[in-house]
């Protein structure tokens, strides 16, 4: 029961952070992406805030034989650059620009503005399913 409780806590803090920071507001996120319009530097501050604890966490992680509540670290590789990574990031960026939403804020908004966020999240799950199907 310990591991799900830790994950729930991480989710709670993550969601609170998205709501507090302004990331959960699609108009503000799109304004950050609007370099040629009324640019809003918001996301740069959110990123700076998020990268500080995580940079320290990676340094601590290197000195830990295993995580606190699990048997082993289960982390993705860092080196591989391929067409899937690039094409995926391009498609994601287009969707992010159109809607002003990435997956975290979309889930956060489910609890604040469920009707609009719900439409986006259902479409996002459909996109994820389409990837699963086309991957074979």
């Amino acid at each position: 029961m310990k591991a799900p409780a830790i994950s729930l806590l991480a989710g709670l803090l993550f969601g609170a952070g998205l709501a507090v920071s302004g990331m959960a507001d699609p108009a503000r996120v799109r304004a950050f992406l609007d370099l040629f319009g009324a640019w809003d530097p918001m996301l740069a501050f959110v990123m700076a805030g998020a990268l500080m604890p995580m940079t320290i966490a990676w340094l601590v992680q290197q000195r830990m034989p295993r995580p606190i509540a699990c048997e082993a670290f289960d982390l993705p590789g860092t080196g591989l650059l391929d067409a899937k990574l690039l094409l995926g990031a391009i498609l994601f960026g287009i969707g992010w620009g159109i809607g002003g939403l990435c997956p975290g804020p979309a889930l956060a908004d489910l609890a604040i503005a469920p009707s609009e966020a719900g439409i986006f999240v259902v479409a996002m799950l459909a996109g994820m399913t389409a990837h699963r199907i086309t991957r074979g």
Partner: protein
Amino acid sequence: MMLPGFPDAMPAAGLAGGLLIGLAAAIMLLGLGRIAGVSGMLARASGIADTGAPRVIALAFVIGLPLGALLATLASSGVEPRFTGSIPQLVIAGLLVGFGTRLGSGCTSGHGVCGLSRFSRRSMVATLTFMTSGFATVGLMRAFGFING
């Protein structure tokens, strides 16, 4: 706090919210040995992906996230979401975000927050690519009259 030249910017709130997001990701890494990547956790929790975090871990994270946002909003420190564009735009955006984040193995949280702080080459390239793509998309939408003001 106001930023000169950007009257609507919220640098202090952005930084504070960012710290919470980074703290959450640090708890996931040091506590459970995993990346707090929302697209991956959502795919796993919904059963669309069958590899990744144990399902109960992914479910707890995906349930906690909107609850945390709701609590912050009820404590009146949240920001009112303003949705941009029509329903068809939201649908197209959602489809692209869902497909793209699975194909590219991550989104703003996994590649952005967790990958950049790890100096992962893969995540740095992904983040640079989706940021550039996002800037270009909004620039084109502005050029073609989808965004005014």
